[in-house]
């Protein structure tokens, strides 16, 4: 089977467009919500964590730093949740026509990716307004985004096929997302952890989400950001989170391929 035959590409395109059109049905502001949502979340967190709790410490451009973290986290949460629901929500299609099922998961994660690009524009505008000095490292962003996308896709494929059989997975993933959110240095700087538990902080940074979000901040906002490799003192350590991403993706794809034949029957 050709993974990206012409037919599959057209289908992917149509399904993604449909997803996008359906998402903001009957809302007055429509697509604007995909930007407004993280902005509002950001406003709340900025007031609480940067102003009241002064968590930013001495990080320059902390507002953009925070906004970038939240935008990428929102993407991860959205893409994995879309992947989780993809198969079940397209159940009627699967029961009536045969087509490569991974296209549904791809289209769900890609519409999250499109949202990310809108948000990224907002982040860039903020960065310019708040006087962030861009460095050449901004060119590394696509690789960071790719890593995060592949992680979300792998998890989405796995959750999507599990959700067909066990609806509990939906609730479990909600809780897990909360756990990962607080386990990732998004609203708090990683330096807060390393100040009291230096080894714990090093371990935390091994998670692909922590690694990639810190790298994005480093590449986009400020070289003051603590990254995985600066904390461990070797770039080779990056193989661990990248390895995790590849393993999750491979396992997700394998499990999805194995169970996709039965989707039509189980649903």
């Amino acid at each position, binding site marked *: 089977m050709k993974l990206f035959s*012409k*037919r599959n590409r*057209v*289908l992917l*395109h*149509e*399904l993604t*467009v*449909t997803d996008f*059109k*359906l998402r903001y*049905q009957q809302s007055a502001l429509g697509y604007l919500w995909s930007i407004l949502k993280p902005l509002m979340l950001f406003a709340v967190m900025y007031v609480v964590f940067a102003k009241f709790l002064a968590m930013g410490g001495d990080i320059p451009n902390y507002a953009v730093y925070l906004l970038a973290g939240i935008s990428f986290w929102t993407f991860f949460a959205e893409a994995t949740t879309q992947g989780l629901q993809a198969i079940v929500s397209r159940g*009627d*299609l*699967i*029961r*009536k*026509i*045969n*087509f490569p099922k991974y296209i549904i998961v791809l289209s769900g994660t890609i519409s999250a990716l499109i949202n990310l690009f809108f948000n990224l524009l907002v982040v860039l505008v903020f960065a310019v307004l708040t006087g962030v000095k861009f460095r050449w490292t901004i060119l590394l962003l696509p690789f960071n985004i790719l890593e995060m996308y592949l992680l979300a896709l792998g998890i989405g494929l796995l959750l999507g096929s599990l959700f067909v*059989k*066990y*609806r*509990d*997975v939906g609730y*479990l993933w909600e809780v897990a997302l909360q756990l990962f959110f607080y386990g990732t240095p998004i609203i708090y700087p990683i330096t807060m952890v390393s100040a009291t538990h230096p080894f714990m902080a090093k371990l935390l940074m091994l998670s692909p989400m922590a690694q990639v979000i810190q790298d994005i901040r480093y590449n986009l906002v400020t070289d003051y950001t603590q990254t995985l490799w600066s904390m461990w003192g070797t770039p080779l350590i990056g193989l661990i989170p990248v390895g995790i991403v590849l393993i999750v993706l491979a396992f997700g794809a394998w499990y999805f391929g194995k169970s996709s*034949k*039965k989707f*039509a*029957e189980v649903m």
Partner: protein
Amino acid sequence: MSIDSKNNKEVAIQVSHVSKSFKLPLERASSLKQAIFNAISGKKGYEEHQVLRDISFTINKGDFIGIVGRNGSGKSTLLKLMAQIYYPEKGDITVNGVLVPFIELGVGFSPELTGHDNVYLNGALMGFSTKEIDAMYDDIVDFAELGEFMEQKIKNYSSGMLVRLAFSMAIRAQSDILLLDEILAVGDEAFQRKCYAYFAKLRREKKTVILVTHSMDSVQRFCNRAILIHDGDLKIDGSPLEVAQAYQELNNQRLDLADLESQFSGASDESGRNHELEEANRQRRENVDIAVSHSISADKLIFDIDLIPKRTLEDAVLTFVINSEVGEIVFRVASDDKNVNQPIDFTEGHDSHVHLEVDNIFPNGIFSVQVAVKKADRSDNYLMANNVLLFEVHAPVDVSQNWKPPFRFAVTPKKD
């Protein structure tokens, strides 16, 4: 697997020794808790339900095949297996060529999208590129008669508009093999006529079509072969006529069973009514017995009817009707018609024989015979035997295609 026709280019679909069973959960096992509990306690948590058993058949290119069977016989599962929506448990299915299934009209239609958007989505599912749909878009809209409504969300469409749009899409399918499931079950008469016209076109174009249906009329009208599935087994693979007759018998058995069940199930209102109906049918059978035989030659259809009255019927007449496969009456005669006027003696013990000859100017097709014994004023039926006989006509010249009444055609210019 010793099918040597596997590499034959003339084969469209090869189904070999296919079996399929479904696991039906005993309790709601779609929760993790239940799954873990079942795994620990060694319970299976489901019941195996065998839907199809060792099915084998070959569909050649250009075949128009009907798959029939009662509800729950497994015929839709078979269709989904051929459409590769389900996967066979044992055996395998080989498909040569592009296959487009229509398990339902308008697959993927989203109520929240406009007609326009749905056309592109549905088209993509049928394997069309955006450009191809651009090219045929106007035709689709025209055929569906939806011009001004295409920018409306389809949740605001009437069901008729939806069916028109979906059907208008379906007939664009550019495939070698079409799978159609009961699409005739929706829509009004006008829509069904459109469907029939579409089927006729497919047949003319020698497309490979697999039609799952309950309608013996469509099977006999369009199919060159039919398959009867009963309780997961392939019962008959033969001519549409054979299959239609066998299907009829199956249905009669089912009626008898239903009657029996209702008799045993006590005196509820409904079964009471069933009982009355059964009683009426029994009385009718007690009125008169009939046997019909026939022979067909190139110029004559000959019917011989034996009438054995079981009790004396006063004022009884015989009516004889030939129906076309779509249920239209094509020939009708009664013993008390003015130009016939042959009284029949329905006295107990006086058997009669009726000999009927009809000129064979019938078009190609399959016809069914209905024989009835009625009270002369038509106030009561003593006997009503539907489909006592099915016969097929192979006209040397297909009358339906070439028949043309004499006519005159004249144009006169109109002066001011």
